[in-house]
């Protein structure tokens, strides 16, 4: 597929074709501006390609109508570099919010949220506010929020970009554990340490083109 942003001199992604199997763990790496974040945006149906097709969970979402987008996004979890937590809500409330706004009852939240907070290693810190948590812990809350609805796919856009190396490793262990439950994990990063340690599939993008696609790959 090809994506050209208006006013851009060259396409952000140029004839890129990638197939990711269910349950895989894939890194997209490459320098800033190489187009890797555009892939995440397209998988979220935030931008649509000018050419080509995007198929997620066996469904062609390329020309999906925007009113179908909410239902589509419920099958996808997403984590960002800047956590995107609500500052005036506790860890528990942040995760519960994601459930309640898609129509789940408070009773469901009470059952599921503590479970998933336990899973990400935040047991006992449910009632802390984001500013009372460390960066790593905040990212765990974000992962919990992305995972609480048991999505088929977890997208992570530089999830360790704001974290120190040790904390980054912990977050990666968490993502690895989530991947082992059968969730497909797609992660965009330029943290070479992490890629080298994980030894998972690596897709390298440069100037909008795939220059490498390697199983059990390293950063460079």
């Amino acid at each position, binding site marked *: 597929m090809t994506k050209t942003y208006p006013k851009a001199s060259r396409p952000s992604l140029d004839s890129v074709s990638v197939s990711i199997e269910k349950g895989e763990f894939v890194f997209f790496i490459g320098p800033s501006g190489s187009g890797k974040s555009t892939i995440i945006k397209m998988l*979220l149906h935030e931008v649509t390609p000018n050419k080509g097709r995007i198929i997620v969970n066996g469904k062609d979402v390329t020309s999906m109508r925007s009113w179908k987008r*909410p239902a589509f996004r419920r099958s996808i979890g997403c984590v960002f570099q800047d956590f995107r937590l*609500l*500052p005036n809500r506790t860890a528990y409330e942040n995760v519960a*919010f994601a459930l*309640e706004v898609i129509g789940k009852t*408070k009773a469901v939240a009470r059952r599921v949220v503590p479970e998933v907070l336990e899973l990400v290693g935040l047991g006992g810190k449910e009632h802390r506010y984001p500013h009372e948590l460390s960066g790593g812990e905040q990212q765990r809350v974000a992962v919990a*929020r992305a995972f609480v609805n048991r999505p088929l796919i977890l997208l992570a856009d530089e999830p360790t970009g704001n974290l120190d190396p040790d904390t980054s490793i912990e977050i990666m262990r968490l993502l690895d554990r989530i991947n082992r439950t059968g969730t497909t994990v797609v992660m965009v990063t330029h943290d070479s340490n992490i890629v080298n340690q994980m030894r998972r599939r690596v897709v390298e993008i440069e100037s909008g083109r795939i220059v490498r696609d390697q199983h059990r790959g390293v950063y460079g």
Partner: protein
Amino acid sequence: MRMKYVLSEVLVGLWRNVTMTIAMIITMAVSLFMLGGSGLLFQKVGDMKDLYYENVQVSIFLKTDVSDQQRTDLDTKLKSDPLVKEVTYVNKDEAYNRFKQMYADAPDLVNAVKPDQLPESFRLTLKNPEQYKSIYDQYKDSEGVDEIVDQSKLLDKVFGVLTGIQNFALAIAIVMAAAALLLVANTIQVAAYSKRREVAVMKLVGASNWFIQAPFVLEAVVAGLIGSILGLIALIGVKLVAGGGSLAALEGLITPISWSDILLTFPLMAAVGGLVSAVTGWVTLRFYLRV
């Protein structure tokens, strides 16, 4: 739970930006008050037209030196005219009596006028008051006719003024509505900005569009409805003041505006207030949130 969430968000939203909310409600109220007022006036003018034009008369005044022959000719002609429903002849004495009655509080004027100075006349009631023109054309050159006066000319002036007031009220209603619209748009933008983090998360995790938009749109609708209630109260206030005081003298002239008339305009005001707010809010969100 979802309804409760939406409603609490609405109240929090209205309270968070309370000065803007008040401004929005006031402009809305004034606009709807003017709209309701002009609606009432429109209705009343219609009623009054029916009432007055039915009784409107055309007067054919005769020259002072009119001969008996001319008078009799005119009388027969008028009586057989298909456009005329009724003819009454008013002689000089009767005219003088009417004149005395009309100016009873100005005896000097009455004393200065002698019965034979007043013209005799035929008073016609037309089958259709709007056919005055053809009557005028037909009789203006008849012998012995001095002048033809149509009361509906006068009524036209009165109704012209009333219609003018009505249009003025409508114009103010429209201008205020435009201001209210901009305020709604602005309030919603501020509200959406202050909740941008929540909205971003909601979009990300797949909350439905209506669920994201409903609190904002309802915020505007609630303000619109409160505005329409205040507008209704203003109309009731005008009725109370006018009914008791300054306008009571006109009671006989203008058909009175009843309580049911006022209460019946409320659904119109509420519907316009609510609908305009909802549509403005929704359109604003389309541009601002792109949901």
